[in-house]
């Protein structure tokens, strides 16, 4: 689940009338000092990063002057947390704390439904204190439609020993927190600490906000770039993948770069959560590290798998390519096979690959991989449901030992690369199909027609065309890539299915090409 940085979370809370300390964000020491001057000393300077226990890691500083702010800002900015640099800091007024509480709303599967929590102590380690009986913890389920009622919130506060004037302040706070939680469809929303000041006011001094990735599309105000749990600010390639995925809803494509170091990094192409996890375990057992995590599942189109493969290859620096899912997939596996064939020939693949496409129509999938990739200078082995992930990882191990990465080489892609002499083209869902009718007129077998399961093509005037006008039929193309491969297989290469990935070529260019 995607998370919000503290300053963003507090901005949302404030919109719902929840008191937060006055604060500003800054990206360098000058900005930080200027912000502190505006807020007034003393201030708190907090690195914006997805870690708990920031105080203990030197990521939070209390400052009394501009000079101190500058020093602290230069120290914190640019430091790496969890493998990724701190890019922003939050400067806030320092609260005069009388006591600290903990307040949260979360979803639990046990009820199932939302739960409101309040503890009479706050700060890190509150879960341990609650477990040890050193803190009082009150919780109660509330209605997902109508929200937390005031009397329900009050009962939580009373249970935590809150009395007098503070009783209504804390219960009002909880009701609003639940409102944010439901309105923004959070997965969990925690205020820790919830500060009661010497002046008797309550403030959200820190906030952890976990978004429901599946609802992020309905909440542009949250500013989520990638609605996934990634634990680091998204990399360029991850952003490219996510932006494309947001436009193509057939099946799932998820791409994540991993930071694990190892001398045998492998491009990993999984299918389905459970199967991917099992397959990565098998890789790790053979001394490989996964350079990335990638999942194409839920019956993705061949076009989607093609793009996923290109992301995996574009990372560079891999010694092998490993595709493996659960082993007995319900999705038609030939789509994945065709997508990989197109990507592998186009890139071209320069390391050994083991492709385990077990499941529905696996025989055809394995046949496709064998037929179209056997001439590559690197081995590509294909397996089905009767071969375990462990066995396939073992095969990759053997292949990688024998076949180091090869130098870039010329490979004939499945798509036509020459400019068409007599082009016939139509737009499909995420790309364009271009056919050179000058080539087609010399074609005898015309396998493109039969390969199209959508049955939208016919031969008219000695060349393939859409049977019906493009507006009525082109959207029925499932981007299965069968026609391009069939044409290539017939030795003609008249078809080029162009499937752009916005930002991808720019990314490669910036990186200095392949």
């Amino acid at each position, binding site marked *: 689940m995607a998370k919000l940085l503290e300053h963003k979370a507090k901005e949302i809370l404030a919109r719902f009338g929840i008191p937060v300390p006055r604060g500003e964000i800054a990206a360098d020491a000058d900005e930080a000092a200027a912000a502190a001057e505006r807020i007034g000393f003393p201030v708190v300077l907090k690195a914006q990063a*997805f870690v708990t226990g920031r105080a203990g890691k030197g990521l939070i500083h209390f400052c009394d002057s501009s000079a101190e702010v500058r020093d602290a800002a230069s120290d914190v900015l640019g430091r790496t947390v969890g493998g990724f640099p701190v890019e922003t800091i939050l400067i806030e007024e320092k609260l005069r704390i009388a006591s600290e509480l*903990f307040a*949260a*709303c*979360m*979803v*639990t*599967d*046990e009820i*199932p*439904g*939302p*739960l409101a*929590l309040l*503890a009479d102590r706050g700060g*890190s380690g*509150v*879960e341990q204190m*609650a*477990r040890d009986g050193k803190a009082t*913890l009150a919780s109660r389920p509330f*209605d*997902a*439609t109508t929200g937390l009622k005031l009397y329900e919130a009050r009962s939580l506060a009373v249970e935590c020993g809150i009395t007098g004037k503070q009783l209504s302040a804390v219960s009002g706070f909880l009701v609003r927190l639940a409102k944010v939680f*439901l309105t923004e*469809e959070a*997965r*969990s929303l*925690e205020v820790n600490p919830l500060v009661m000041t010497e002046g008797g006011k309550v403030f959200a001094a820190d906030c*952890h906000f976990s978004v*429901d*990735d*599946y*609802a992020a*599309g309905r909440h542009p105000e949250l500013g989520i770039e990638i609605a996934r749990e990634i634990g680091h600010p998204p990399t360029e390639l991850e952003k490219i993948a996510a932006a494309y995925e947001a436009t193509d*809803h057939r099946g799932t494509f998820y791409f994540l770069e991993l930071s694990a170091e190892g001398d045998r990094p492998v491009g990993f192409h999984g*299918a*389905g*959560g*459970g*199967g991917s*996890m*099992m397959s990565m*375990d098998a890789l790790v057992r053979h001394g490989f590290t996964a350079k990335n995590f990638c999942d194409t*599942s*839920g*019956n993705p189109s061949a076009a989607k798998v093609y793009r996923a493969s290109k992301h995996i290859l574009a990372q560079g620096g891999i010694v092998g390519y490993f595709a493996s899912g*659960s*082993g*007995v*997939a*319900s999705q*038609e596996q030939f789509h994945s096979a065709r997508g990989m064939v197109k990507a592998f020939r186009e890139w071209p693949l320069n390391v050994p690959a083991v492709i385990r496409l*077990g*499941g*529905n*129509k696996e025989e055809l999938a394995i046949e496709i991989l064998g037929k179209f990739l056997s001439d590559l200078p690197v081995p590509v082995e294909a397996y089905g*449901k009767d071969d375990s992930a*462990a066995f396939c990882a073992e095969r990759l191990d053997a292949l990688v030992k024998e076949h180091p990465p090869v130098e870039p080489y010329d490979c004939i892609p499945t798509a036509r690369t020459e400019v068409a002499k007599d082009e016939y083209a139509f737009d499909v869902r995420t790309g364009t199909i271009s056919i050179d009718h000058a080539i087609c007129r010399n074609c005898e077998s015309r396998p493109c027609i039969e390969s199209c399961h959508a049955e939208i093509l016919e031969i008219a005037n000695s060349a393939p065309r859409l049977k019906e006008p493009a507006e009525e039929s082109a959207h029925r193309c*499932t981007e299965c890539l069968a026609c391009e491969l069939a044409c290539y297989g017939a030795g003609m290469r008249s078809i080029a299915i162009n499937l752009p990935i916005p930002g991808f070529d720019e990314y490669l260019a910036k990186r200095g090409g392949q």
Partner: protein
Amino acid sequence: MSILVNENTRVIVQGITGREGQVRTRLMQGYGPSVAAGVTPGRGGEETLGLPVFDTVAGAVNQVGAVDASVVFVPATLAADAAMEAMDAGVKFVVIVPDRVPLHDVMKLCKFAEEHNARFLGPNTLGCLSPGKGVLGMMGGSPEAARDFFAPGRVGVTSRSGGITSSIAYYLKKAGIGTSTIVHVGGDSIVGLPHPEILRLFEEDAETDAVVMFGEIGTTQEERVAEMIRRGDFTKPLVAYIGGKQAEEGTRFSHAGAIVEGGRGDYQSKVSALGDAGAVIVERFEDLPSETARVLAELNGK
């Protein structure tokens, strides 16, 4: 018998004219059970795959008569609404196939289902399949594949990972063990019928002798199963594998999660809870079939 689906189940398909709806309706028509009608708002009056299409579930039920289940293939953000429509029209069991259904939608649906005395499988589920009888959802993908993958028998399967659900049943079949019903409870953190509910059904099913369960880290489903066993609410042998052992420890972001789950949810907690309760825990996925065979042999020797 079997649970959730058998040869007599009557089903409608919501979202029947979409890509998935078309392919999976063919699966159900080819493998069983019988599909009575389809629903796609705006396409009422049309016909597809030999079935009448209606604008609403109520309209469909009015015309074709009561149905036992509805399988939903609509876009994720419309899925909960579609399920509510079905329940409101008197359908007591809904299979919600789409992935990425918003969590708050599912929470509201849980309550709605309870009020309507209905239940649902999923979201993010392949569905359920009773070998030789019928399938609700997309398990197996095509009739031929489903016939090839699954064999009837007396072991129930319940799993939180879709692909793994079919894998378990297939590898059991290869080891000569047939299955009564194969259930993918769905991959999300809140699902309509989590493991404990499925085990309750298997407990009552006279044709299920033992159950194989694929658990995963996160949620309290497996711990609740352990409690059921301890309370005597589930008495049949249970063979379990828990995925996610390699998942990073200490990355938990939420104090609230830690407080509420109180250490439940992680790999060790699940393995020890189930082990202590008497379930057979399998460390390597590959060993599931042989362990299941051993458990069945013991059972029959008794």
